[in-house]
């Protein structure tokens, strides 16, 4: 049974229909000692049925440490969004429930071709960045 109401599924299907590029969600998980990995799996599994441009690729955090390192993942559950253009450098740590699900949907749309909704000034500031910047945004479930 879906976690999303039929009405919301329709809205999401319409939104995802605008996607022009495929988005792969790398789902880093482990079987033991991960309280929210199963919840996260249930949440991300809601997406592929709503768009043929969205796929989930499960990555075993214990067995595939190289991949985890490659994507800067040091804990699970974690998501990394990748398009056919490569890594979007957008990550989610923890189960994307509540408002974080909205953030995940927005991120999928962004990576899926909608592009950044930033001002010209912001884009210019970001274009001037020439060394690694890591932004961690802490949220709580709402």
């Amino acid at each position: 049974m879906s976690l999303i109401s039929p009405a919301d599924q329709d809205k999401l299907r319409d939104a995802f229909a605008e996607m022009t590029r495929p988005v792969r969600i790398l789902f880093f998980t482990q079987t033991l000692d991960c309280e929210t990995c199963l919840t996260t799996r249930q949440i991300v599994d809601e997406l592929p049925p709503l768009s043929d441009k969205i796929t989930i690729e499960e990555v075993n955090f214990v067995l595939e440490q190289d991949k985890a390192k490659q994507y800067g993942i040091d804990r699970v559950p974690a998501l990394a969004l990748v398009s056919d253009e490569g890594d979007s450098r957008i990550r989610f740590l923890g189960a994307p429930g509540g408002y974080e699900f909205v953030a995940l949907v927005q991120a999928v749309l962004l990576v899926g071709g909608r592009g950044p909704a930033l001002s010209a000034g912001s884009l210019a500031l970001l274009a001037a960045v020439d060394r690694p910047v890591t932004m961690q945004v802490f949220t709580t479930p709402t």
Partner: protein
Amino acid sequence: MAFASPHVTAYAVEATEFPDLARKYRVTGVPKTVVNDEVEILGALPEDAFLAEALREFRIENS
């Protein structure tokens, strides 16, 4: 912002699931943004104010 710059990586972190990170970065309220373990921004700011603050260290270097 991560999408707009190849140098930026963005993590949305669920604070209650990772109390060690919440403690390390002294997360007393949300949203809280930590940039390169140096700049801390508490609360939601308008986009331009957020970026000015988030990239503050770069401006100092550039000025």
